[in-house]
């Protein structure tokens, strides 16, 4: 135990006493995520408010006065210009170029056809917009909505009892039809996004220090100095895995804090996301993350011990990293934790499901325990394998 602690402290000190490593492993992930997500959130917010504030530039032909009055009465932000003065193809090109948002052409006999609907065909309104352009798409959606309202008005006018246009009402006097809480909504949003990000950050944290700690020591020849000391190889393995796990957890925590602080901006809420986790949930989340990071570090350590150089280790770890991202992405489609206990035996996938359970607040202790115990078993196996690799002279000293 004393030797494990000595190895642990040295590995830990190696990272925390190096300002550059502290910055790149512990501060940068959180800072980068916060800045990236905040910028992204601001950009999305700016784009949305810009569209909302934008005055639609619309060309029209034969637009009925009633529809025009409706737009004015409802203070729709639109500048209406007559097509009569311009050439159709010129305006079409202006829409493509983003100078005009929409063109609506009513038939010249629109109003007479509406009045004489019993004998006439339905008049066809032609709309032109650029679906690749945000202002134009938004203008189309706005005008489509108002044309729909205008359509209802016309139908009402044709009925003897206009109030009968709606055969039924929905939730006019039901203020409680939206069940659930903001907390649950936020939890659901987080459960869709966070498991993948957490797995990614845990992995990238371990990747940034793991290969250097083992493959780097092989490459630099410092592992041999350690191997001629009278300590068990298993003590070296456990000391390194525990230290790397704690450091990776710090790195992941930094990323996690970055996400939490920037999530509000990313989700376009006013403040931070309103989630009230209980103490038990925090403890469970920590246990699940630590068990997960142990498995990840165990895998990375074995690959690093097998590889001859840091470069080779990083290359060999990559497919595993992509696989972990793919596993994490599974949470984005469904968002519900699995109830099948067997799932909680599958490394990483079990972590994703356990994290979802905690985030959505539907914890099943039995399955979480299965996840934790199976992770400890996997880590033990991985440490045993690492121990064997440290004893293998072909692996340790191959050139």
């Amino acid at each position, binding site marked *: 135990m004393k030797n494990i602690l*000595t190895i642990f402290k040295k590995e830990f000190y190696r990272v925390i006493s*190096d300002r550059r490593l502290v910055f790149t492993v512990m501060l940068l992930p959180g800072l980068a995520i916060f800045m990236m997500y905040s910028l992204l959130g601001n950009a999305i917010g700016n784009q949305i408010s810009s569209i909302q504030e934008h005055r639609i530039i619309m060309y029209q032909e034969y637009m009925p006065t009633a529809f025009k009055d409706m737009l004015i009465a409802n203070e729709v932000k639109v500048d209406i210009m007559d097509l009569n003065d311009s050439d159709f193809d010129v305006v079409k090109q202006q829409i493509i170029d983003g100078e005009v948002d929409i063109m609506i052409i009513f038939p010249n006999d629109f109003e007479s056809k509406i009045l004489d609907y019993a004998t006439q065909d339905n008049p066809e309104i032609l709309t032109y917009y650029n679906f690749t352009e945000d202002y134009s798409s938004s203008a189309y959606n706005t005008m489509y909505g108002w044309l729909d309202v205008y359509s209802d008005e016309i139908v009402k006018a044709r009925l003897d009892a206009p109030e009968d246009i709606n055969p039924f009402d929905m939730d006019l006097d039901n203020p409680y039809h939206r069940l659930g809480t903001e907390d649950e909504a936020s939890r659901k949003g987080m459960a869709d996004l966070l498991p993948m990000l957490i797995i990614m950050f845990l992995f990238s944290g371990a990747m940034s220090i793991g290969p250097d700690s083992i493959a780097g020591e092989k490459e630099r020849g410092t592992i*041999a100095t350690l191997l*001629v000391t009278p300590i068990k190889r298993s003590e070296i393995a456990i000391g390194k895995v525990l230290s790397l796990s704690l450091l990776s957890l710090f790195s992941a925590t930094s990323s996690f804090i970055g996400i939490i602080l920037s999530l509000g901006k990313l989700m376009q809420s006013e403040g931070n996301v309103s989630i009230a986790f209980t103490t038990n949930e925090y403890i469970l989340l920590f246990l699940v993350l630590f068990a997960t990071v142990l498995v990840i570090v165990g895998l990375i350590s074995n690959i690093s011990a097998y590889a001859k150089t840091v470069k080779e280790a990083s290359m060999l770890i990559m497919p595993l990293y992509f696989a972990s991202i793919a596993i994490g992405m599974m949470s984005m489609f469904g968002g519900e934790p699995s109830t099948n206990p067997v799932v909680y035996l599958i490394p990483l996938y079990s972590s994703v499901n356990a994290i979802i359970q905690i985030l959505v607040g539907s914890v099943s202790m039995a399955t979480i325990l299965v996840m934790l115990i199976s992770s400890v078993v996997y880590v033990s196996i991985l440490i045993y394998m690492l121990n064997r690799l440290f004893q293998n002279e072909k692996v340790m000293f191959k050139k």
Partner: protein
Amino acid sequence: MENLEVINITKTFSLSKKQQRIEKTKTKLKVAVKELSFTAYPGEIYGLLGPNGAGKTTTLRSIATLIKPDTGEIKVGDASTLKDPNGVRAKIGFLTSELKLEEHFSPNYLFTYFARLHGIVEEKIEERKEILFKKFGIDKFSEVKVGELSTGMKQKTSIAISLVHDPDYVIFDEPTNGLDVLTARSVTDYLEELKNAGKVVIVSTHILSVVEKLCDRVGIIIDGEMKVNDTINKVKSLDETGNLENVFFNLVEEAAQLRGEF
């Protein structure tokens, strides 16, 4: 204190295609050491000589338990490298150019770290540190990171760290490599001190003058085989003029003739 005995060890390595190209051979196996035996005694310095690739480092690495011989046995006192490798590691102080120190740490930190791994109590660590750091002049740069030290300073630090636990068996591979004359002298003087303290010392070196000056016994390995293994005087007497260099070159030449290179 008991002898260090290398008993009939053989070690074979498989060659990668790259190594086959470098060694210009088509054989996939290379016998690095073949049925090699020698004994090093307490209070004596044993010199291991041989050209590059002769098998010296393989022999020393086998003694240090970094690799296992295919056959044969090595006894370091009452501990066997095969049956009790940790017991052997606790008894030996091993230094080779292959063993590097982590550049991020200072000599002071690394000395304490390795002392703890050797199970030395804290008070004793400071005591040993004071003696060895003073002996090799490390106290002047004990807080400087290894990465910022000169080759000589690094070598001195490596030597001090290999002796952190005051081992009874000291195995040094090219201990004066890269050192200036003054530092090399302090190292050879210290090896003599260790010998006088009754320790078993094994030194591998290319510098024949060092061997002549330091060693009580000499083993010359060529192509993995022990060609000569005796006291320094008896080895020197193999040449009419009593010149160790002549003995060495004659043996190298004989081996080359056997390989058909001359």
